């Protein structure tokens, strides 16, 4: 570490100077606590006047503010030619240096308080070995300047030239109605309501509002409600679910835009929290098309990017949250290249295997339940096994693989179908897996190891020799030396 000596010289000599976060940062930091505490305080006044607990929370608030101010005063960041240094010296000193050539993505986002104060959070992602840095928060102009400096390496800081943006895809408001098709958004309102109620309960508990009698009286009131009212409330909730899911979807994905700017693919989205994720093009290894049976029926698909060294890829690698298939295919082609088609199906022997694998677990449970003398449970399990038959058949129908000389694609799954498209150059190894049962059927599973996404693209239950041929077609140099046609040899 030569940081201290080099630092004292260069700071005076040249451009790199230590910068602070935006002064309003502590306001943003405190806003969340403030809101919660204000709500609790107001409730406290209404219910039982100022209690001791309330004074304690006020003291806590003051302490929180002091900590926020102190954190702000002791945190600086400095941009050098080769690295970004984050120094913090509140308790002990720590210097974090992120080499600029390791930086893989800069992600600018803003929650509601940030947005109101014209601030932004900058996340700097430097892969697994460089760690990551967060600047919470800087002004929006500064965030944009940093993003340009840290990602576009050629831009000089004196004249931050805005590289031309080329819009690749943009969400249409019409697509918001696809939200109920994906289960995740149906449940979002419940998750939000649950966490809100939980917070409220905890706060109330801390302040001593929640007593046993109150809880009991509330539950007594609920039990005492007429059945019709309960049924009506349940129906309302069920009816509200799709509507709420559309609202949640719109909040997260408002004006979802994917554009291209100086070697990066940038996705910008969100209504309240505006989020920008830039994915460096040369680290983009492939894309993933995912859907479920409902989305399949409606011709809708979700598009994600497979990027090396991207943390939280499921959220940050998203390229389209829900879009008609042609639009998604078009975007996939623009960011990666055409999706190889048509897919080659897998041998009929794979069908039986899919069906067996879908039905065997419930059947096994049914047998156990029967032995344990629980015929009712056994019947339920058998019913589940029957449902497994069409599921297994569909899983077989969805299996497929293809390559077009530059990219390969594999598809599997039914309830959550995934089609992965990966560049040939991204493959770092091949794994062929064969169980005893697969060997009897002449099948094997070929896994393309890829250093992006979750690391593996499995082509499930390919024909034994098809798997070898497929791998040999994509990387002949690696496979050919080990090929052997001799049927007697094993």
């Amino acid at each position: 570490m030569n940081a201290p000596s080099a630092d004292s010289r260069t700071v005076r000599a040249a451009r790199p100077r230590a910068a602070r976060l935006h002064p309003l940062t502590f306001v943003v930091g405190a806003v969340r606590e403030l809101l919660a505490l204000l709500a609790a305080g107001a409730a406290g006044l209404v219910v039982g006047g100022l209690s001791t607990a309330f004074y304690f929370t006020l003291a806590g608030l003051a302490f929180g503010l002091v900590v926020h101010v102190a954190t702000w005063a002791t945190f600086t960041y400095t941009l050098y030619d080769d690295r970004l240094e984050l120094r913090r010296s509140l308790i002990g000193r720590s210097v974090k240096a992120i080499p600029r050539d390791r930086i893989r993505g800069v992600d600018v986002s803003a929650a509601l308080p940030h947005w109101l104060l014209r601030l932004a959070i900058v996340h700097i992602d430097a892969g697994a070995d460089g760690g990551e840095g967060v600047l919470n928060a800087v002004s929006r102009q500064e965030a944009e300047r940093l993003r340009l400096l840290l990602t576009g390496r050629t831009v000089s800081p004196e004249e931050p030239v805005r590289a031309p943006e080329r819009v690749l895809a943009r969400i249409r408001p019409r697509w918001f109605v696809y939200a109920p098709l994906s289960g995740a958004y149906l449940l979002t309102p419940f998750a939000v309501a649950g966490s809100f109620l939980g917070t409220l309960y905890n706060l109330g508990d801390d302040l001593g509002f929640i007593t046993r009698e109150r809880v009991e009286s509330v539950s007594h009131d609920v039990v005492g409600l007429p059945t019709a009212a309960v049924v009506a409330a349940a129906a309302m909730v069920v009816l509200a679910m799709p509507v709420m899911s559309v609202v949640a979807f719109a909040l997260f994905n408002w004006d979802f835009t994917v554009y291209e700017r100086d070697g990066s693919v940038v996705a910008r989205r969100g209504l309240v929290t505006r989020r920008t994720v830039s994915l460096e093009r040369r680290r983009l290894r492939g894309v993933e098309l995912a859907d479920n049976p409902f989305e399949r029926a409606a011709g809708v698909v979700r598009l994600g990017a497979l990027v090396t060294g991207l943390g939280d890829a499921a959220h940050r690698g998203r390229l389209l949250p829900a879009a008609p298939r042609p639009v998604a295919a078009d975007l996939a082609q623009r960011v990666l290249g055409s999706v190889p088609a048509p897919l080659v199906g897998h041998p009929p022997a794979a069908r039986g295997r899919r069906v067996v694998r879908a039905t065997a677990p419930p059947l096994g449970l049914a047998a156990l339940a029967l032995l344990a003398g629980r015929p009712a449970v056994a019947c339920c399990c058998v019913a589940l096994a029957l449902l497994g038959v069409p599921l297994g058949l569909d899983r077989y129908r969805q299996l497929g693989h293809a390559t077009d000389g530059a990219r390969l694609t594999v598809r599997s799954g039914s309830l959550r179908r995934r089609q992965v498209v990966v560049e040939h150059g991204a493959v770092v190894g091949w794994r062929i897996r064969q169980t005893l049962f697969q060997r009897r059927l002449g099948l094997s599973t070929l896994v393309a190891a890829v250093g992006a996404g979750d690391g593996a693209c499995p082509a499930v239950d390919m024909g034994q020799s098809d798997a070898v041929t497929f791998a040999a077609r994509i990387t002949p140099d690696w496979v050919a030396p080990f090929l052997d046609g001799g049927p007697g040899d094993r």
Partner: protein
Amino acid sequence: MRRTQEPGGGTSHPPRLRPPAHRVARRAIAQWAIESALLWGLASGLAWGAAAWVDGWDGARRWDGLLGWLGQRVWWLPVVVAAVGAVMTVLAPVWRYRVHRWEVSADVVYTRTGWFNREWLLVPVSRIQTVDTEQGWIERMLGLATIEINTASHAGSSEVAGLPVDVAARLAERLAHRAHDLRDDAT
């Protein structure tokens, strides 16, 4: 959907991978047998404890109504576990020894592992990130070592267990050097 019809090399038989050239050390059988014996011994001990608990050494027969037919025969559990363990300890290591093979040629590491289920793994040296050698206490006793080959993907990382120490050390060094020379930025 249509079936794969590859033009292939025009040969009469479909292409398949030949087994890698080298076997692992014969002592590896002993290593796997010891490991298996320890593991299954522990498992049957646990099963015996569980059976005793269900049967109720303190007089209270638990789960009597719940498990029905199974509840009456709970003492089968440790017996079955021990029997399976014995078979596995005798059979699996030999089977494993027959399957485990490795080879490094044409700058590709080619391994075959497993026993009941088999796995073939092809990793080009140019995509290797790190090469580690490891020795557990049983391996130290037997003079064996495991080589771990890591790539950017978990699926592309392989392990060759049961190599003699000197072979493993030489191989690891060679691979590390070669990987350094060939390293390309594919990941």
